[in-house]
């Protein structure tokens, strides 16, 4: 009966109104995120506080905390991340200051020159530095040719290698976020300060530096958090004593099949990262932090 009806007099095609479409989009996005990310992530967190029978236990976490070498790895990771991010800031700030003032063709060219390493595979960039810093690598060959005493320097498979490699890999993030913020600084403000009689140092310290701080904060947080979770560079360029947390998680999963241990480690990692974000978000705002140059 109903079929006959619709065939005889088709109802005017119902147009999806905007709210309907929004609900449809929301359902698709939320279902996708729930199924592929939120649910498995909750399972990871659950594994971190249960045993094989699914009973609640703090044993995996306790084991990690009693393990002295783990405390070393966490400190090592945090220290490396902070060190790398500081290096990026110190190296990047003066360059970004200059590059942000370029206009026209030079601005485009230098932009591409920064984007090129930024977009190139981080594996490739890590490999590049293994070639350069190795015992018979480019740098040591060059220093030897120049008769610098003490060659070959040991620059690979130690802390120096990891910090140099990671600084190289993460520097574009810092540069892009600094340049993005510095470009938006209104030169009128600097001219105003100058016309009011301020010297270059005063202008920089009281006008320019404070205005560039959002970029500094964003770049520092991005490089610190990326550095904290980094895997490739420390895995390839570090020695056993430069092991970082991400490597431990990988080892537990791939080599030891210890899901509870890996999950407990992930819990600790997540707690530290979220704490950094919570502190940062208070004065930056979440989405601002994510797209300092967008």
């Amino acid at each position: 009966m109903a079929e006959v009806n619709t065939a005889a007099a088709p109802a005017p095609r119902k147009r999806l109104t905007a709210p309907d479409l929004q609900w449809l989009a929301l359902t698709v996005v939320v279902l996708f995120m729930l199924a592929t990310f939120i649910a498995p992530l909750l399972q990871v967190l659950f594994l971190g506080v249960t045993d094989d029978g699914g009973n609640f236990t703090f044993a995996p976490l306790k084991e990690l905390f009693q393990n002295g070498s783990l405390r070393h790895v966490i400190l090592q990771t945090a220290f490396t991340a902070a060190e790398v991010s500081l290096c990026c800031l110190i190296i990047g700030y003066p360059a970004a200051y200059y590059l942000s003032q370029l206009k026209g063709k030079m601005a485009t060219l230098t932009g591409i020159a920064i984007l090129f390493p930024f977009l190139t595979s981080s594996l490739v960039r890590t490999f590049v530095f293994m070639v350069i810093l190795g015992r018979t690598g480019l740098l040591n060959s060059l220093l030897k040719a120049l008769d610098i005493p003490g060659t070959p320097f040991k620059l690979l498979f130690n802390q120096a290698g990891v910090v140099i490699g990671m600084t190289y890999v993460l520097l574009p993030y810092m540069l892009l976020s600094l340049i993005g913020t510095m470009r938006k600084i209104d030169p009128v403000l600097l001219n105003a300060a100058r016309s009011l009689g301020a010297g270059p140092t005063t202008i920089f310290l009281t006008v320019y530096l404070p205005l560039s701080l959002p970029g500094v904060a964003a770049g520092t947080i991005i490089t610190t958090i990326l550095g904290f979770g980094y895997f490739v560079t420390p895995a390839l360029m570090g020695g056993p004593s430069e092991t970082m947390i991400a490597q431990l998680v990988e080892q537990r999963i791939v080599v030891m099949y210890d899901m509870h241990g890996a999950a407990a480690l992930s819990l600790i990692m997540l707690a530290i990262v979220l704490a950094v974000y919570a502190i940062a978000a208070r004065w930056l705002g979440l989405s601002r932090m994510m797209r300092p140059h967008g």
Partner: protein
Amino acid sequence: MKTRPSLSRSVLSVYAYGLIILMLIPMAALVPISFGDSATMSALPEHYSLRWYREVLGGSQWRESFSWSLVTAGLATLISTAIGYLGAYLLVHSTSKMKGVLEIILLMPVMVPTVIVAFSTYILSNWMPADSNWLLIAVGQALLGLPIATLIIAAGLRDIDVSIIRAAVSLGGQRHQVFLWIILPMARHGILSAAALSFLIAFDELLVAVFLTKPGLETLPVRIYDAVTYELTPAIAVVSVFLMALIALALIVGNCLKSRGTNAPH
């Protein structure tokens, strides 16, 4: 703006250009190495030949992992651009109070360390059929690109003047017509950049692929990682040169498109 050439300025310019050159030189150094003739890596090869180019291009191993990377990264790009568009649409147009929660959910994969996202995908694989690993690698890679895709597309959508859409609707445009002929062309730049970045992120992704890899299913980054760890031959330099050439090409094409876009009259 008045520019006074001063000593500090020229020091700064030397520093800035020097830093950029220092960032590029290491990558250029791989080119001569890739033409090396010996079986082991050396920073300054004594003899040059195309030996390792033949080895990489002729053998099936590198080609196979390259095509797996293309498959997973291509799929990942489709997923993260599509979901990213929907998410961006909601972030820009929704008036719901849930918007903040949605934003956090969508941005989470980039806030959480990659190894944990990879771990989640690995857990996901325990719930799925055993032969779905290639699909799950794509899903994990899509998750990592999703936050960036969402933000880029959202920025593009925010730039669209709402009055143009209103005008189209008031002139009798159906919803799908407005979407196809008005919104999509104006959001095109953001969608394309989002897709390009998602692809690069997925193509470079290592950990998800390491956790889900199995014989016969090896993406290029996994292959490179293994090669750097165990073999260390000039083949890696050859592959690196290829990847760099692809990026350079993409940058040039992207830049041409962009300058054409800004020159075109609106």
